């Protein structure tokens, strides 16, 4: 038990921060908001040289097979810098292939990911925004050596820049819930795919993607046909925890800006940071972001250990959703009017943290998952010990 960073972890954080401080100025963040692709290809190539895309990839595809915690630390730094990179969505999709895909799939898709030559994304959500199997309606019908996918996916991250998209669809017509779901690797340039950009609070690239008779070879099924739910659940848990890491990184930077501002902005003849109402607000913001960060890294660490981590992931996301949002909102409040101005940088962090709180599961959904584990599974619960399992 030692919840602080060890030497290796500190090195990862320091080098990532140093790199992004030099290579990812706010100017680039702003420019990419207006860019059609939404990310910098140059920066993507540079982080591939640092090995970020391959961090948790197997060694046989050129990756460095590091723990997810390390990638979490990198995403925390990427969040801190608001790095305009399709890092999170690529990680979610490529990790699904690395952990649950076949040898052939790994060899086919992952070396390009590691080399920074491929961007990946994933598509789960349709019209029902919940992260439950019932929300998946997209149909995938078997046809010879292929499946044919029809339906509409929403909130697909970085689709315009993606080479491949990992897609959840229903292969058993009329099936409900977790039964009959299958996970596919889809070439994002396939015939029958079209996308409409959504205009988001974060001004990031999210799309409505329509599948009209999209043909996907059977060889592109991850795992077994009709049995994808456990794979998908693991993919979503990893993605949610990694998103939390990104969120706490951005929220930390955001509150640091407010704390610095409070030290030099004067009112009534003294720095506003000397007023207790401001001090206590800052203290709470620090406590909230610390809490979110510890919950997040405990979740990632448990995933690394192969321990049950769904409850930990949900703890992190529900807490980060509410507390990171409250922290960045308070930063706005401490800044007063200037924080509301487009030309002032604080808003870049505020809008992203806000948007991320709404992605990959609301507080209500995650708390419902926790409540189920706490209340519906028989057996005494004890804080700090594993929960009873069904």
């Amino acid at each position: 038990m030692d919840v602080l960073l060890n030497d290796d972890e500190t090195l990862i954080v320091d080098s990532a921060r140093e790199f992004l401080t030099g290579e990812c100025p706010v100017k680039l963040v702003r420019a990419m908001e207006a860019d059609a692709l939404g990310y910098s290809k140059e920066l993507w190539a540079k982080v591939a040289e640092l090995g970020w895309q391959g961090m948790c990839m197997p060694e046989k595809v050129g990756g460095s097979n590091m723990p997810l915690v390390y990638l979490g630390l990198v995403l925390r730094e990427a969040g801190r810098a608001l790095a305009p990179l399709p890092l999170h969505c690529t990680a979610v999709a490529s990790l699904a292939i690395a952990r649950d895909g076949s040898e052939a799939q790994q060899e086919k898709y992952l070396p390009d990911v590691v080399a920074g030559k491929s961007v990946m994304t994933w598509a789960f959500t349709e019209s029902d925004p919940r992260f439950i199997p019932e929300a998946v309606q997209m149909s995938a019908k078997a046809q010879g050596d292929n499946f044919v996918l029809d339906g509409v996916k929403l909130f697909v991250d970085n689709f315009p820049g993606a080479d491949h998209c990992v897609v959840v669809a229903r292969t058993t017509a009329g099936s409900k819930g977790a039964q009959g779901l299958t996970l596919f690797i889809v070439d994002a340039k396939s015939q029958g795919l079209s996308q409409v950009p959504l205009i988001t609070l974060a001004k990031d690239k999210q799309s409505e993607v329509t599948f009209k008779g999209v043909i996907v070879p059977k060889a592109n099924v991850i795992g077994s046909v009709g049995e994808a739910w456990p794979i998908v659940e693991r993919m979503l848990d990893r993605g949610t925890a990694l998103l939390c890491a990104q969120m706490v990184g951005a929220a930390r930077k955001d509150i640091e800006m407010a704390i610095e501002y409070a030290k030099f902005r004067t009112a009534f003849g003294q720095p506003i940071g000397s007023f207790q109402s401001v001090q206590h607000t800052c203290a709470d913001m620090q406590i909230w972001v610390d809490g979110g960060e510890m919950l997040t890294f405990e979740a990632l660490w448990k995933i690394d250990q192969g321990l049950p981590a769904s409850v930990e992931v949900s703890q992190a996301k529900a807490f980060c959703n509410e507390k990171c949002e409250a922290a960045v909102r308070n930063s706005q409040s401490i800044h007063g009017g200037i924080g509301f101005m487009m030309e002032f940088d604080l808003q870049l962090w505020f809008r992203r943290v806000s948007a991320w709180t709404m992605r990959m599961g609301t507080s209500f959904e995650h708390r419902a998952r926790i409540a189920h584990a706490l209340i519906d599974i028989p057996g005494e619960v004890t804080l700090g010990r594993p929960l009873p399992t069904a």
Partner: protein
Amino acid sequence: MDFAYTAEQEALRREVRQFIKDNVTPEVADETNPETASERPRGTGPAAAALYKRIYERGWLGITYPKAYGGQGGDRLTQYIVEEEFTRAGINITLGGSGAPAIMAAGTEEQKQFYIPRLIKREVSFCLGFTEPHAGADLANLRCSAVRDGDDYVINGQKMYTSAAHMSTHIYLMARTDRNAAKHDGISIFLFPMDTPGITVRPLWTIQNNPTAPAGTTYGNSRTNETFFDDVRIHKSCLLGEENKGWRVGSMGLNLDRVGAARYLISVRRDEDIVNWVKRNKFDGFAPGQNPAIRDKIAEMWIEAQVCRLMTMRSMSIVERGGKFTYEGSAEKVWAPEHGVRISEAITQMLGPYGSLLRTSPHAIEDGVFAHNVMGSFQSGINHGSVQVMRDQVARRGLELPSSRRPKKVEAK
């Protein structure tokens, strides 16, 4: 990062649990319960004394203290694990507050040799004499005086909320030794026996009295005290640390007293209790555990309790690495007590009027612990540094925000 206990630590936990199962008899529980044991020194009933002797023999008292002083020279996490299990069983194995850490930090060799082994064996116990009627959060405003007279000091004054005064052998007292010095500079710390002539202890009854609270209630103590000192003469060797340097000594002890298993558990026990209660119970056809709003609130509180746990682990990690807190201990002392209040109040709205029933009442739930906790939980946000003072410390020490200027005195018209 490492969020797990080692196999060795897990084995220790099992060992402690088994020991508790075998040794904590109803007689022990009765004798160690501060309610039933309120009129005699803590843990001196025959059954409890025998239990503490066995715990001592197992090497589970004073784990983090050096072997030279009767401790085990063990690490903080071992202490945490053992303390967590005993606290859950209602047995206090801590050395009772800030006295021992302060002696280790500032005591003479003689003081360490005398007090630490005796504190570990529970032959000596301290009550805390810090707060006064005019000095609470602003502790340095204290007036209780210690005046040097030859080889002695003569103490006069009053201390408030000396909770264990009626069952402690000694007092750990903060007094003013220089009236002309700046507020924080004229303060000293003294350790002396409670049977010294001139000490009067008067009970103050808390809102947990009549009926008294069930074991495990957050601040369930029915009694605290006010203590008066009338020309109490003590030898100069009772001084801890240097004369007039007592402020720093006192704060060192307090900082270390704010972390640990006992501190953590007083804020989170009800989270566990309510989950286990709704799993097993309902009111006729109404199962609170199946109500979506209640489930949402229970999960929200559970997450907050995890943050309490992680903050405690962070403090452990910092201490284990030999580091010092800048703000982490204070942050924990904001988050955990306020969480304790939130869960207590949330439970009242899950149980409705049943949540108001105290121990011994017909229909009381879980011996009335939830109702008693409403009265006790906020108390942990007040003592040993209020949450407001703790937020000041997070802001100023942790975030380096500037001190507020003292307001100018308003001239009387």
